[in-house]
């Protein structure tokens, strides 16, 4: 059974309503279809949306400690940008979200992740990872890549 969003709610996802670029990128699929297909990917990867959100939230929280400067964390470099103001959820929920964007670089793999506080809520609360081409789209595989890549601590040098 297909679900459709109320047109007023759907408008929230478009560019210029809540954010400059919106949440859908060039994706022409309905929002619930995007959620459904990403849900299938999550199942295939054995990843829950809660686990993905928890991981991203942990990164963001660590990034906050740098007060917008870079933070070294488990071999990754985190940096956040925190603007004044609040953003609402495009699904129309009343709760507001801080305007924080986070970038995570893994120098050992060259991987990069970019996401926002709102994006974490959208993943946790709605299973929405963003439309294809959206600048805040997070591929579930990317999250797994960051979660599962082992951080290899410096090996101890045996004493002589």
């Amino acid at each position, binding site marked *: 059974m297909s679900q459709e969003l109320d047109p007023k709610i759907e408008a929230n996802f478009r560019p*210029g309503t809540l954010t400059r670029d919106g949440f859908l990128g060039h994706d022409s699929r309905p929002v619930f279809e995007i959620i459904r297909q990403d849900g299938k990917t999550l199942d295939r990867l054995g990843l829950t949306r809660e686990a993905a959100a928890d991981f991203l939230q942990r990164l963001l929280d660590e990034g906050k400690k740098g007060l*917008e*400067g*870079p933070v070294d964390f488990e071999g990754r470099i985190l940096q*956040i940008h*925190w603007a*004044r*103001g*609040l953003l609402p959820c495009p699904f129309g929920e009343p709760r507001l979200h801080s*305007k924080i964007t986070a970038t995570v670089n893994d120098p050992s793999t060259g991987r990069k992740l970019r996401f926002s506080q709102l994006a974490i809520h959208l993943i946790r609360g709605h299973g929405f990872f963003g439309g294809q081409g959206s600048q805040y789209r997070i591929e579930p595989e990317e999250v797994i890549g960051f979660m599962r890549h082992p951080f290899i601590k410096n090996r101890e040098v045996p004493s002589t």
Partner: protein
Amino acid sequence: MTEGDPLKNPALHRITINGSKILESEAGGSLFETLRKHKIFLPSACGGRGICGFCKCKVEAGGGPLQPAETARLKPEEIREGYRLACQVAFEGELAISLPDSLFQFREYETELTGIRDLTYDTKRFTFHLIQPEAIQFKSGQYVQVQSRPYPGVAASVTRSYSIASPSYQATELELIVRRVPDGICTTWMHDHLKVRDRVLMVGPMGDFYLREGSGEVVMVAGGSGLGPLAAILRDMARVKNPRNVTLFFGAVCRKDLYYLDVMEELRSELPNFRFVPALSRPDSCDQWEGATGLITVPLEGYLRNADPARLQAYLCGSPGMIQACMKTLRAIGVGNDRIFFDPFA
């Protein structure tokens, strides 16, 4: 303020303000919009979309049922006392509301952009000349609400709050320092589409961020665009040769994030007891930085060891994260909340 006789024109509905002021207008839209049409501007960071919760007012009669955005934004005691979000109240029928007198001081200003100066790679200073009215009275540190215009890809206007970066004695021109927000509707408009000679509407002045009376020490902490309003306060102080001890900490990541070093140098020569302490949390090797390093809370903590928390006033302006971190540091040494000042935009 009457626009017509409701007996002759049944389409007119009425708002009674503070028991005496009467507005009559055609129904439709929200209370927020209707008040705005009559040049009564309630504070708003979201332009009346039910997001910020700033437009609360007491509705004595009428107003219809509470909307979901209101139950989320208003405290239970506020709801019990009859407070509503004006942007969520449909304007129809008879309404009776109470508004504080201070609200009637907000005015709408038509301005013209006269200059744009790049301060850093992501921060610009915009200078606006006041057209109508021709002058503004405000306290250095207050803010205005700026109304953006549509631009390619963005069909609607939004309203955003920006602190005034010019001093209060500069009554015919306003300066705003605006840092680009990733994916931000209004900062994108200002940085990429606004041109010299464009007309821009603003409402204000608003806010409680300004220098309080006192003889005790003042500590200021700025991050990002927050240096603007603090520099405005300092320029006001310099004009009257205010003798108070002031230390301003400016936190940034590396040298390319710093600006207004020339302004700070001027202030150092004009203010007898002013000290400026920039601190970089991660200077690049090419920065050749010999100043304070680390998060801004580090030099702040060092300074506070010798401060009297009972007489100190602290003024914070920057990202919410910086403000939270500095408040924690200040409270830890005993500076009370009544002596810490910032604009709670977030």
